[in-house]
Every structure is written in structure tokens, then in C-alpha cells.
């Protein structure tokens, strides 16, 4: 009876198509993280009283922080819905490795929540008077760093998915793990601002991303099995 069991690619397609359909059905939700980052940036500019010179100096740090916080807040939505309606159970019983499905899900989550923010970054950088020369470095560091943040976040989200009210605990757990990414990401832009070579930090981020791609899905899958026990 047992028919053709799905290949990795077919399973990936199924998850990706579903996520795309869901995002399309609830378009408004997908933009919320980006809106949040924009608001943090605006609030910060307001709190500083809009002093352009000071803003320019801290712009890259604020942008990184805003992107990171927005990602953090959207972590909650990474696995929770799938856990609550039982989709994760069905994934666990599927003949493809859970880690692979988790990887696809995380990639789609990044693409729908963080990617819009990356696209908006040049505009936000302008708001904060970021020197134009630093923009390419900032974009490169975000492009390498934010997927890594999502991967790390996936592990934490998986661990806390069984809790009823995880709220701030997710942030508390994720932030220490985010620190190295932030240090190298924001550090690369700061180095560029001082005329130093920033490629070292970017290489490190790239290496971290590769390691994250290999390890994080496995760790997240293990954490999901623990949390949903």
C-alpha cells in the first residue's frame, strides 16, 4: 500500500507554498514586524530630539537594534500556531526529517518578516542620517546577520513553544545568544565608519551563518521534541 514517500524537495515545496498562502491570506500580520522596527527607530529619533549629528553616529547601532528587536518579537509566531493546531505533530510523523521542515519554515519566516525590513533599510537609514558610505556595509551585515538571528531564534522558539505564556522569556533566552551576532554585525559598520577594514567581521558572520544553517535546524528539532513531550 505504501505509496511514494515524498522527497526532501517535495516536502520543502509543500511547506513553502503553505507559508506563502498563509502570509497572503493575512497580509496585514506579515508587515507588523517591519512596522514595529520603523516605530522603534522613529521613537529613538524623537527621544534624541532629532539632533542630526548625534543620530548619524548612532544610526547603525539603532538600526541593528531595531531589526533585532522586531525579529525577536516575531519569534513567537514561528512555531506557536503550528504547535497549537497540531501541524507539528503531523510533521514529526512525516518520513522527512523534522530538522529539514524546521529549516524551510524558518527560512520562510525570515523571508516574510525580516526581508521586507531589509528592503526598507535604505529608507530608514536616511531617516537616521546614516552616512551613505556606510549603507552597503550595513546592508551586507544585515543580510548575513539576520538569517543567523532567525536560526538562533528558532532554537529558542522551539524550546518555549510548549509554555502557555512565554512572552518575555523568549526574549530573555534569545538575547544572550544574539549578542555575538549583534557585536559583529554592528561592529562591522562601526569599523567601516572609522575607515577600518570591516571584511573580517563580515566573514565571521558568514561563517556563523553556515554553522547556523547546519546546526540550528537539528537543535530546534530536538528542542521541539522536548517541548512538545
Amino acid at each position, binding site marked *: 500500500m505504501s*505509496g511514494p*514517500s*515524498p522527497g526532501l524537495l517535495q516536502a520543502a515545496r509543500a511547506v513553502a507554498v503553505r507559508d506563502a498562502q*498563509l502570509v497572503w491570506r*493575512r497580509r496585514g500580520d506579515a508587515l507588523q514586524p517591519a512596522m514595529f522596527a520603523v516605530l522603534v527607530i522613529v521613537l529613538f529619533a524623537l527621544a534624541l530630539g532629532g539632533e542630526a549629528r548625534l543620530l548619524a553616529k548612532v544610526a547603525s547601532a539603532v538600526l541593528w537594534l531595531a531589526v533585532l528587536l522586531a525579529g525577536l518579537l516575531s519569534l513567537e509566531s514561528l512555531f506557536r500556531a503550528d504547535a497549537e493546531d497540531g*501541524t507539528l505533530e*503531523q*510533521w*514529526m*510523523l512525516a518520513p522527512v526529517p523534522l530538522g529539514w521542515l524546521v529549516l524551510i519554515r524558518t527560512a520562510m519566516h525570515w523571508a516574510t518578516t525580516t526581508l521586507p525590513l531589509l528592503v526598507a533599510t535604505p529608507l530608514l537609514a536616511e531617516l537616521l542620517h546614516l552616512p551613505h558610505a556606510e549603507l552597503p556595509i550595513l546592508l551586507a551585515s544585515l543580510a548575513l546577520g539576520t538569517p543567523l538571528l532567525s536560526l538562533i531564534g528558532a532554537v529558542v522558539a522551539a524550546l518555549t513553544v510548549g509554555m502557555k505564556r512565554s512572552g518575555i522569556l523568549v526574549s530573555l533566552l534569545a538575547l544572550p545568544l544574539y549578542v555575538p551576532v549583534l557585536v559583529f554585525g554592528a561592529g562591522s559598520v562601526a569599523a567601516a565608519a572609522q575607515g577600518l577594514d570591516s571584511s573580517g567581521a563580515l566573514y565571521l558572520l558568514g561563517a556563523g551563518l553556515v554553522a547556523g544553517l547546519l546546526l540550528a535546524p537539528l537543535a530546534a528539532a530536538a528542542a521541539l521534541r522536548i517541548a512538545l513531550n
Partner: protein
Amino acid sequence: MPDSDSARPPLLEAHGLCFTRDDEPVFGPLDLSVDTGEALLVQGDNGAGKTTLLRVLAGLLRADHGRVRIDGREATPVERAGVIGYLGHLPGLKADLSTLENLEHLAGVQGRRRGQLPAQALEAVGLAGYEDALVRHLSAGQRKRLGLARLWLSPAPLWLLDEPYANLDLGGIELVNRMIQAHLRLGGGVLLTTHGAYAEPPVRTRLLHLGRGT
């Protein structure tokens, strides 16, 4: 594989299975087996541990003691993959997707029974015409039927059904029984729980009664 020769090991076999939660035993050492072409009915009161047992067998929970064998081999996650079709209290459906989209997603992840298409499965459970309806707008009974369609579509030979009759009207109960009969005829095995005795499948059935601390 319609032949279920006696030399074959049982589809599912458990020996001395125990599960404790927070150091409280939920069910005691338990032996059971399900052959191909056979249904095992697990009965018990509210809170007797039926759901827990099914989840342990599906590998969603880890037993404290005892062993589970599938097709004669130790049940590791790899061994279980693709063999077990599980219909639990949670439907695994997305409220914002249509019935067909839901089936396509799950079939993509879990595989399909040879020669079956999602639309056919929908028809088989009496949801023809609802292909584009969002799950959000289905009634509880219709959702249950969609879950059955998913199961029917999956290639897994061993079905673990947690209270498949709940929420269904008489026609629905009839449908479940027909599905089980067809599945057993195709060489599958079924383990199902039920609350009271309001329905059971008209097939070769063994009975396991679960009480507190059994």
C-alpha cells in the same frame, strides 16, 4: 499487499509499556499487538490514559519502560516515519487555508497513497464541493471529516485514531467504519480509542480496557 500471511511479524507490538507523568503512573505495564488486517479497540474512562497511550505509540511521547516494535523492528523515529498515520485531538489544519490547500500541504510533507489525489480523498469523505471553503468556515464535524481525508490520503499502513467518532453524526460514524474496513482490507492495521461504547467498527476487533493504574 493484500495477503497477511501468519509468518509476518505483527504491524505493531508493545511489551511492558509504562508511562509516568510527573512521577505519577498514567498507565502500567501494558502488552499489545496489532496485526495487519486487524483493529484494536482501546476503551477507558475519561482520564484513563487512552490519548497518552496513542501518543506514546506514535512516538510523540517517550515511554519510561517497555519496547515498541513496528513490523518486527525496534520503533525508532526513522522506523516510524511514514508507517504511522495519527489522528489526534488536534486536527493539524490551518483555519486560513482551504480544504484542498490543507490536504496538499500535508500530502506534500507525509506522502500520498499510490493513485490517490487530494480531490478524490475529499470526495471520499463527503466533502465534494467544499474544495475551496476555508477551514475556518467548516463545522466541527466537517473538520473531522477533513482529518479523515488526510488520513485516507496518507500512505501509512498503521492508523492510530484517537476518538474518531467524536463530533460526527450518524453518517460520519458510518463513514469511519467504512474507511476502517477498506483500510484493513488493503492490509493495514488500526488502533482506535473510544469513550463509551457508542460506536465500534464492524471488523475483526480486539479489545483493550484501560483503567487507572492498569
